[in-house]
């Protein structure tokens, strides 16, 4: 298994799994095998104003297991969040990413932590793929102190500065100019890294997107605009919202690539290609053809604007986790039972994290006033006579 991943998540589950792992590794050393395996993407890429990358993707057993484990973890995490929301432990808005895991996992496999990712409010899984822990996720969703934003952000405001994950934004489309600003900073500081600014098919109709793309193309910024096209902008299907639903073509002067977003290897290939392109030639648009099983958010049943048959159809034919499972089984890298064991272990990990997050305290009242301003050049919160400090600033 991906032992490094196990070690980083929680020591308890690592201890639990040591006997399992050593047993497995005695019998199956190829789980950490790095001999190359070639995989074909499900469909060829279509491009606009650029070459298409090859359909053959190099991978290996280790990566396959990493993908499987990561995506299964994300899937379980989102379903657990669903139950927590219904139990009223998570309030407000909760936008779930299940079905779209391949985009997060494939993108992360193609890039380094120096590259920046910024996305909208469907950010739980992207946060995890950037290195966030399950405890941080659940604690933030439940508004506890151990959350990644100290409980003050919520579902739509996950950030992880040390791994260049810039969130987590509630207003549709506003993150794209921010993302182009990140790319500008990377160019300014000569970082040789790129920024992936993710948005949805609904946000693709925002004007600020085209404004930001124009500026990025003029200034040659290493910005990659990724449209996660799950075909529905909340309740409005893409053909009802966009005159031209070919989102990868809407950059006009900027090249675009249409990718099967349910195939992690296609995503990985496209992101590698895009990174190379952006560093040399400026912005490029990637359209990830993906699907979300849940509704837009927890308050949306998701079935008033689409049929249940459609949802089950996609789940049967294109599910990203199933695809990796089939690949692992067909390449004889593990048995059904072993994969089920991994999933059981993931389920336990998620349950442990939820239990730990439930124990975590809510923020103190004084937290209300912290981090409104950054301390610098004489900024304090004063009472009227300027002597009494109204809040204790960090």
């Amino acid at each position: 298994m991906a032992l490094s991943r196990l070690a980083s998540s929680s020591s308890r589950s690592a201890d639990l799994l040591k006997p399992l792992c050593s047993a497995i590794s005695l019998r199956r050393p190829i789980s950490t095998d790095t001999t190359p395996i070639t995989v074909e993407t499900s469909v060829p890429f279509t491009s606009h104003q650029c070459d298409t990358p090859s359909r053959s993707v190099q991978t290996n057993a280790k990566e396959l297991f990493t993908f499987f484990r990561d995506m299964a973890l994300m899937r379980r995490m989102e379903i657990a969040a669903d139950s927590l929301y219904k139990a009223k432990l998570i309030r407000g808005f909760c936008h779930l990413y299940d079905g779209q895991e391949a985009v997060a996992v494939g993108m992360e496999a193609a890039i380094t932590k120096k590259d920046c990712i910024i996305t909208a409010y469907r950010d739980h899984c992207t946060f995890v793929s950037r290195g966030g822990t399950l405890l941080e996720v659940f604690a933030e969703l439940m508004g506890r102190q151990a959350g990644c934003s100290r409980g003050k952000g919520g579902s739509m405001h996950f950030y992880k500065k040390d791994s260049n994950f810039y969130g987590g934004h509630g207003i549709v489309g506003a993150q794209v100019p921010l993302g182009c600003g990140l790319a500008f900073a990377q160019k300014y500081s000569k970082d040789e890294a790129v920024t992936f600014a993710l948005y949805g098919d609904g946000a693709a109709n925002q004007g600020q997107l085209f404004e930001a793309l124009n500026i990025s193309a003029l200034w040659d910024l290493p910005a990659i605009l990724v449209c996660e096209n799950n075909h529905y902008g909340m309740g409005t299907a893409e053909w009802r919202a966009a005159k031209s639903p070919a989102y990868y073509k809407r950059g006009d002067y900027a090249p675009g690539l249409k990718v099967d977003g349910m195939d992690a290897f296609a995503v990985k290939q496209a992101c590698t290609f895009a990174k190379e392109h952006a560093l040399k030639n400026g912005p490029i648009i990637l359209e990830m053809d993906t699907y979300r099983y849940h509704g837009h958010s927890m308050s949306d049943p998701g079935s008033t604007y689409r049929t249940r048959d459609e949802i089950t159809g996609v789940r049967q034919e294109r599910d990203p986790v199933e695809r990796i499972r089939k690949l692992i089984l067909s390449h004889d890298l593990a048995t059904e039972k072993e994969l089920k064991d991994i999933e059981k272990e993931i389920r336990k990990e998620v349950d442990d994290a939820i239990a730990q997050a439930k124990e975590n305290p809510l923020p103190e009242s004084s937290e209300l006033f912290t981090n409104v301003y950054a301390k610098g050049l004489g900024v304090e919160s004063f009472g009227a006579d300027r002597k009494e400090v109204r809040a204790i600033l960090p």
Partner: protein
Amino acid sequence: MAAIFQGVGAAAALSSSLSNSFDSKKFVSSPLRKGASFAVVRSDGRVNLNPKGRRAQQLISNAVATKSDSAAASSSSKPGHELLLFEALQEGLEEEMERDIRVCVMGEDVGHYGGSYKVTKGLAKKFGDLRVLDTPIAENSFTGMGIGAAMTGLRPVVEGMNMGFLLLAFNQISNNCGMLHYTSGGQFTIPIVIRGPGGVGRQLGAEHSQRLESYFQSIPGIQMVACSTPYNAKGLMKAAIRSENPVILFEHVLLYNLKERIPDEDYICNLEEAEMVRPGEHVTILTYSRMRYHVMQAAKTLVNKGYDPEVIDIRSLKPFDLYTIGNSVKKTHRVLIVEECMRTGGIGASLIAAITENFNDYLDAPIMCLSSQDVPTPYAGTLEEVTVVQPAQIVTAVEQLCQ
């Protein structure tokens, strides 16, 4: 209290800023502007001022000027140099760009054109196209890009050609600029400066005479300052750039050609401090930006009539300097607010609430607030004059207040 400025903080900021992204070869030497100090940055990050004889880098915070009628330089015996307000802004910006390589300017026509009010004149030639950036007419996105760049540690100065245009970027300013530090639990700071001219000009029409301080004032997380003299323009510009918080610097279209003598040495103005323009005994007049000059004109008449008004330029629109204001109220017991904002929901309205809440016991009379009329600014000159507060109205108001 907040007398000497965080020299330590400034030095720390300086050394961290010159860490990895500075390329000394790119440091272009260019003809010095008269009176500008030129910093030579060494490879280990130490900064020496131009050996041509400027004194050691010493930060002086101009707190309260004790001279009446003028907020001119209260520092050392050196006479300083004379310049116009837009030149003072330019000087401040240029000095900060030399001092910290992370400072960049973004806006429409700031680069090759030199800035529509010449505030960024000459900077593009000196610092290059990557540090002084001409943007297309896309306020929403380039403000957003400035904020995104600030999240990584750059210090952009975003210029709105007219403050009114920044309404298009309101979402970015309110949600991203103001709130990201809070919603990320302190992970990101947004050291951005958003500046531009606003206010009622000379028959510019309704859409180009907006006073946005009233719209931005309730955004948590941002600071707002309004400059009114070349001295505080330069000082506030520098302080705003050095601040870790997002700062909105309000300039006024009609004040760009004010001339004043300012000190040669490096100084900044405290962002949260008000300026005592004229100490007095009878009434406290609180004002900012262009109305300061209408108030001072009225003050001349008032002095002739035997009144002794205390005039305070509040400068910091968010947060209010309730310390200076409070002390003044405790002394005079009467308050008149003269502002250019509209009466409804303006800075004056908030100031009335703040003073009443905190100093109600000290007031002998209800607070009077003179603001612009709640109308779109008309084009016709006579109507425009009536929209804005005039000195005669200020005199009448003080007489009424002091009865």
